[in-house]
């Protein structure tokens, strides 16, 4: 067992998702198996083959941010700051002059603030580039997301964003974990954020990767992913620091592993090579054996290629134990929130460990011979969870696995 100086725990969670803003709302909806993939309302899909997606409809920026802050940032930043506020409150962590340098921010995203660029390009074509508001360009670079978090909460420690597409949340949490273990910080605000992106919706439509209706991960009739939006933040903290201030602990982070398919930009390696590397490394770095894993939160996008490849990865690494290990995808409920996905899934894993409930894969009806594991179909399942893995993969071949464990003092 590691000394408490090197152990890292999750002490707070903040969520903005298509099935609810706020941890309690999200959890209640997820346990019920609510479908957040619906006909789009905030984005006009009339020209597209697909007309559904995941939108965060209950998000009111003014509930979480000042008017000045709302005007200073795009929707991604607004999600991220709102989720951070929730997570800090949940963790009961106060940022002060004394601890500001020992708290950092590590975020992930796929496209940062795409709506800002979309707005600027539309203005350019409609009215000319000279009509682009002067304050708009500075809102675009994705560095503005962690910068806005640090600015609003006066956080002075390390500040980074890792835009490794749909695996970005895991990368950001992994980096935050290392920052604490290397004694660069005592607390890290880590997660991911992405708003609904017209670029992503257009691109995935043109690749025929989007489902025309609902998201059915691992099902024989799965028809693609659902473009979605959201943010997930976890407060991760040195165990000794958390214990000293009497923080409530969701779970311990044991470690993570990264890899790369190095195969194609838009298609996962059918042999799962990168995912196998990441999962094996996560297990090794966490000091556990494969048969200790009680549950896997799948990347599970609902595309033919991903779900088949991910099933292979789990079977290759877990061996016979794969047959009895529950694997589920909450993307069936919230869609694919891009760079926020694995951060939301990590937060969901922490909640599953704390509450002793596995969230389901909804919309599952017909088993696929190529996807022959226990996908926790349609209903959540009560069970004691000790060790949990969260997988996340991405465009460009990024692969990652994160290992969480029930906290034991």
């Amino acid at each position, binding site marked *: 067992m590691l000394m408490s100086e090197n152990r890292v725990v999750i002490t707070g969670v903040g969520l903005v998702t298509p099935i609810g803003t706020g941890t309690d709302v999200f959890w209640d909806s997820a346990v019920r198996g609510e479908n957040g993939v619906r006909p789009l309302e905030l984005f006009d899909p009339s020209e597209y083959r697909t007309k559904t997606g995941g939108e965060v409809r209950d998000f009111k920026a003014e509930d979480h941010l000042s008017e000045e802050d709302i005007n200073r940032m795009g929707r991604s930043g607004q999600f991220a700051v709102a989720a951070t506020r929730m997570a800090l409150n949940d963790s009961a962590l106060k940022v002060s002059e004394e601890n500001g340098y020992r708290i950092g921010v590590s975020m992930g995203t796929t496209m940062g603030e795409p709506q800002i660029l979309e707005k600027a390009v539309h203005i350019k074509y409609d009215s000319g580039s000279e009509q682009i508001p002067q304050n708009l360009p500075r809102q675009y*670079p994705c560095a503005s997301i962690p910068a806005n978090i640090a600015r609003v909460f006066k956080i002075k420690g390390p500040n980074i964003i890792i835009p490794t597409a749909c695996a970005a949340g895991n990368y950001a949490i992994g980096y935050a974990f290392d920052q604490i*273990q290397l004694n660069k910080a005592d607390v890290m605000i880590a997660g991911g954020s992405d708003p609904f992106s017209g670029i992503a919706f257009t691109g995935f439509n043109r690749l025929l990767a989007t489902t025309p209706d609902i998201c059915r991960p691992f099902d024989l009739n799965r028809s693609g992913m659902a473009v979605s939006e959201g943010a997930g933040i976890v407060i991760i903290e040195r165990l000794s620091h958390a214990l000293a201030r009497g923080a409530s602990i969701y779970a311990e982070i044991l470690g993570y592993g990264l890899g790369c398919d190095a195969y194609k930009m838009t298609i996962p390696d059918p042999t799962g090579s990168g995912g196998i590397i990441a999962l094996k490394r996560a297990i090794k770095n966490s000091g556990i054996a494969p048969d200790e894993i009680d549950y896997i939160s799948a990347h599970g996008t609902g595309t033919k290629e991903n779900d088949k490849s991910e099933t292979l990865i789990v079977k290759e690494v877990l061996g016979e134990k794969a047959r009895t290990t529950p694997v589920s995808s909450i993307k069936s409920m919230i869609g694919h929130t891009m760079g926020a996905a694995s951060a939301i899934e990590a937060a969901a894993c922490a909640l599953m460990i704390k509450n002793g409930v596995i969230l389901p894969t909804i919309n599952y009806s017909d088993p696929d011979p190529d996807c022959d594991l226990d996908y926790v179909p349609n209903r959540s399942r009560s069970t004691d969870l000790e060790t949990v893995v969260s997988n996340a993969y991405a465009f460009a071949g990024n692969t990652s696995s994160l290992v969480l464990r029930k906290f034991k003092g």
Partner: protein
Amino acid sequence: MQSKRIVITDVGTISSLGTGFESLNEAMTRTPQKSTVKDYDFHQLENDIECYSIKDYDPVQILGKKGLRNKDFSTKILLGTIQTGFEEILSNTDEYNKPGISIGTAFGSIQSIGDFLSDSIISGVNSVNPQLFANTVINSPTGNANIRFNSKNLSSTIASGFNAGIDSLIYSYNYLRKNYIQNIIAGGLEEISYYALLGLLRSGMLSNSGDPRPFAADANGVIMGEACALFLMESEESARERGANIIAEIAGTASSFDPQTAQNGKSDGESGAFAIKTALEEAEIDADAIDFIASGANGNPKCDKFEAAAIKKVMDTKTPVTAYKMFTGECYGASGAMNVACALSDLKNKKISGKAKPYQTIDDIPLVFEPQYKESTYALVTSFSCEGNCSVVILKNVN
């Protein structure tokens, strides 16, 4: 684990200073040459904007035709830099032991994203080329490099604005200290793009005199550059085992954030000073051991004032300060990495570079205007952004 030493054993660059580290060494003895964006067919911009662009780089000559179709210029710069800088280690290792790749960028694929958007507006959303969608993710160049060079070990992209290039080195330094993998090709990448220039123009950050004057009391903005600078990073043990030439050690790193700079651009430099002090502590040296400071100053008055205040709080007032952006322009996500490459060049060539007609500096910063010839052991490389990021790397000359 904490005491593991991380070294740089190879350098690759493509920039306005040429292709390769030797070209960079040679170019830093000459007066920098600017060009204008009209050379680039950025006809939508009304102004002829001066910049430091990459010239004389032919991707096909270095990479061949195969695999370049549908790749954007950022990707082609990155692939060319890796091909020319790290061919030996890439060709002598199997796919599971090739170096990982970690790339910093500020704007990433903004040109590709903008073009994809424009195409969807002009041609309609159902007519855009789906093959070009892959270029729109910010990690696209890095992923393309992993695919081209068949590296499965690591694919990371860092996008912390001006600081991305240096933060990529810090990321890799930490990753190697955790012993996750053996070696990483790390650095920064940025292309001059219509959308980046348009953004700088609209936000009033470009110099209206076309003259980059880092730390100048009367500076009026930046001149954009483009570059890719990469380093092979590994543990000292790994380098010695394989008989690699050690160019320098990364003796210390640190990063911090200044909320005040982010809020209103008014900073007392305390957060930047904290990053410098923390890096010095990690390197286990005092401030007076630093032979020169490779600053990130670029001619943006707010940024430069912030950096000057941080330097003044910690460093000896006589320690020479360079601003390599006199030579390269503001290369954004590549600039921190370019500063490291230029500092390595100066360490190697026993000099501290500068190339400008002297002018009055903010807080009397002792800026180097003409080359100073001296042997140095420690260089402090700083990168402080207008968004509040403060990143510091200390290089130690081990030769």
